[in-house]
């Protein structure tokens, strides 16, 4: 039997050849080493000289989420103003712009590894998790001295607060509303007003599905993707329900969050999703964030205000002739107040920042109305501050962004998700409940009760 000896051949070859090679060419190796050292030293010298000549050179580092253009514009405009304020310094920004999911991962790994980062873009639902972990700087005293908090819409300012401390400034937001193709509704004989109530919505779905069958367009869009809870929350909120609520008696924390989404309101809200499936609306497991609507794959879609971004800006003028927008989610009955979910991005300063004051200055410049408003106008984002939403800048935004006024009106009925560390797991439990109802495995009450039990465990209640 042959012995398995993978190193034998190599060792003998090394013994025979390599040792001889090294000893015979020792001088040559030494000279090569010296040359490499001289080259390395020469290449480093100019860099070191430049460093010493420009002693006040500062590079602010940032991790932000795609799309890239918006940050490029915003950073460039803010940097001009920051440099004007600090003529004695050479300030630059080194930004890493990443896809959504990678942004969170990159921020987490950078913070856990204590990498110095000066500014990060934080999705509202990450704030609690990051703040609880000690990744973000407490900006309360800086924000207090800044004295602009009252200029923010309350929900938007509160979104940046965790445990009574300010950890982020909400830069812009988005709202979800109902979009429809006017020609398709005309063609199917559906009155847009009928979409406003639950019963009307279901009846319209059936009518449109029958009329549009076979032409490649589906009547209504229903989210079945990983963010399906986001599109269920508005129904919960409009009925007066909550995702979680503070409750006393927590085994470790005294008073802490408790899942309340399995309330009567929650069950009723989930029943409406079930009714949609019964009415023939198919949950879509793939989501293209409004592109499917722009491609006319759906006649009606509940989607965020970013949907407009799927239409070229030169088509924005007159877009309201082709597509309609109802600034609400369908309500149980006429006269009820609707609700929507607000998302968007916050700006925060990590605890690891080595230029905290300068980063704060940059952050405040970035959210100055004269710097931020042109960016919102260009990309169709909604403001979180009243001076842009209602003040002098609103006229320009209103003239440029279709349905701007209607979208702004939704901020009043906008809610945000809880920014607590356990939220991702709670959302996963809710998503499971929604899937179980979609697939007819469980009734809404059973599905929500089972999910809430798991969420309670996640929150440390058992």
């Amino acid at each position, binding site marked *: *039997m042959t012995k398995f000896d993978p190193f034998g051949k190599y060792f003998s070859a*090394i013994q025979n050849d390599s040792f001889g090679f090294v000893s015979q060419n020792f001088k040559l190796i030494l000279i090569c080493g010296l040359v490499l050292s001289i080259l390395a030293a020469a290449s480093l010298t100019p860099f070191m000289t430049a460093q010493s000549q420009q002693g006040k050179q500062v590079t602010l580092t940032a991790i932000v989420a795609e799309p890239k253009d918006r940050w490029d514009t915003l950073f460039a405009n803010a940097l001009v103003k920051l440099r004007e304020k600090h003529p004695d310094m050479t300030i630059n920004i080194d930004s890493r712009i990443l896809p959504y999911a990678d942004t969170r991962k990159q921020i*987490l790994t950078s*913070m856990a590894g204590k990498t110095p980062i000066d500014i990060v873009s934080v999705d509202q639902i990450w704030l609690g*998790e990051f703040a609880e*972990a000690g990744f973000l700087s407490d900006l309360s005293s800086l924000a207090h001295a800044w004295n602009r908090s009252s200029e923010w819409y309350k929900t938007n300012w509160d979104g940046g607060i965790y445990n009574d401390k300010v950890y982020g400034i909400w830069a812009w937001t988005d709202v979800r509303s109902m979009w429809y193709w006017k020609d398709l509704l005309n063609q199917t004989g559906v009155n847009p007003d009928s979409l406003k109530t639950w019963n009307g919505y279901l009846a319209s779905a059936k009518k449109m599905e029958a009329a549009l069958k076979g032409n490649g367009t589906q009547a209504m869009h229903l989210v079945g993707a990983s963010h399906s809870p986001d599109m269920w929350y508005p129904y919960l909120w409009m009925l007066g329900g909550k995702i979680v609520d503070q409750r006393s008696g927590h085994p470790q924390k005294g008073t802490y969050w408790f899942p309340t989404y399995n309330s009567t309101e929650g069950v009723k809200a989930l029943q409406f999703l079930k009714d949609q499936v019964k009415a023939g609306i*198919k949950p879509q497991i*793939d989501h293209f964030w409004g592109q499917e609507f722009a491609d006319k794959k759906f006649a009606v879609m509940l989607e965020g205000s970013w949907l407009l971004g799927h239409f070229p800006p030169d088509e924005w003028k007159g877009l309201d002739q082709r597509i309609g927008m109802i600034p609400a989610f369908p309500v149980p009955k006429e006269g009820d107040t609707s609700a929507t979910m607000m998302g968007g991005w916050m700006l925060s300063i990590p605890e690891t920042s080595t230029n905290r004051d300068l980063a704060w200055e940059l952050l405040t410049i970035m959210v100055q109305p004269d710097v931020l408003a042109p960016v919102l106008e260009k990309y169709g984002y909604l403001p979180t501050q009243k001076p842009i939403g209602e003040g002098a800048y609103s006229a320009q935004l209103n003239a440029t962004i279709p349905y701007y006024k209607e979208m702004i009106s939704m901020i009043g009925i906008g809610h945000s998700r809880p920014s607590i560390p356990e939220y991702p797991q709670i959302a*996963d439990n809710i998503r499971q409940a929604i899937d179980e109802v979609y697939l007819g495995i469980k009734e809404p009450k059973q599905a929500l009760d089972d999910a809430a039990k798991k969420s309670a465990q996640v929150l440390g209640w058992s």
Partner: protein
Amino acid sequence: MLERRTQRIQPYLLLVPSLLILTVFLLFPLLWNVYLSVHNVSLSTILRDWKYVGPNNYLSLLTDPGFHSSLKVSILFVGGSVTLQFFLGLVLAVVLNQQIRGSNTLRALFIIPWTVSAVITGFSFKFIFNDSFGILNYGLEQMGLNPVSWLSDPSMVLWTIVIANMWHGTPFTMLFLTAGLFSISPVVYEAALIDGATKTKSFFHITLPMLKPFILINLILITMWSVNFFDLILVMTNGGPLFASTTASLYMYRQAFEFGLLSKGSVVGLFLIGVNLVLAYSYLKLFRKDGTEVEVARV
């Protein structure tokens, strides 16, 4: 005397860089994972004190229904993927090893799926199998058939992913076994032919036995890859619907990086390492029984 000693030590010194790399990139993370697994570390507590919890994380994993379900999914996924990849790869390798025109070109074409990253494969198949707009359902509808819920039906989704994985992974088996086939001397087949052996007999009595070392290594590799595989699934379904496509590796990823439960993720990771080692050992044991150890060493 000194020179002899130096000569003896020198090979080991030359191994030092490789060993250092292995220590830094393999041994250290492994030990770090073990350390994490006996502490209670989440993203919320990572910068604070890490509480020692002993075997609690391991014990809680044993009673975690989510993990149990992911194990079942993994067994089906690995079983399906390895079986399909292996048999299809073997058939392709054998067929293309015949003296047929264009076999080299076909071989090159068949390798393409393996060169495409799993993420791109995932996205491509996600669009192909899309329930509403996928080309497959479009084709079915054009033929008057009902569309299939490839990715939204819990009983169907895993097999859809297995198909995508088969497309992605089969070329490796084909390539690997082709290398094995090339190593078999044609003289053996000529001798068999003279002795009256049919092609089928040659395949079962010459090709397969002589390919055994290659088959073994191929099976070990594709099994390990399938156990650890998660990027394609992440892209295609993110484990849904209803966790029907959440394999143990994806479960590990989600626990650690989506929910920030680093200790729990570490425990699952260590469990998967154990599974890989057991599988590799089982294959080796199985083939040793057949007396193929020598050939394995040669491969």
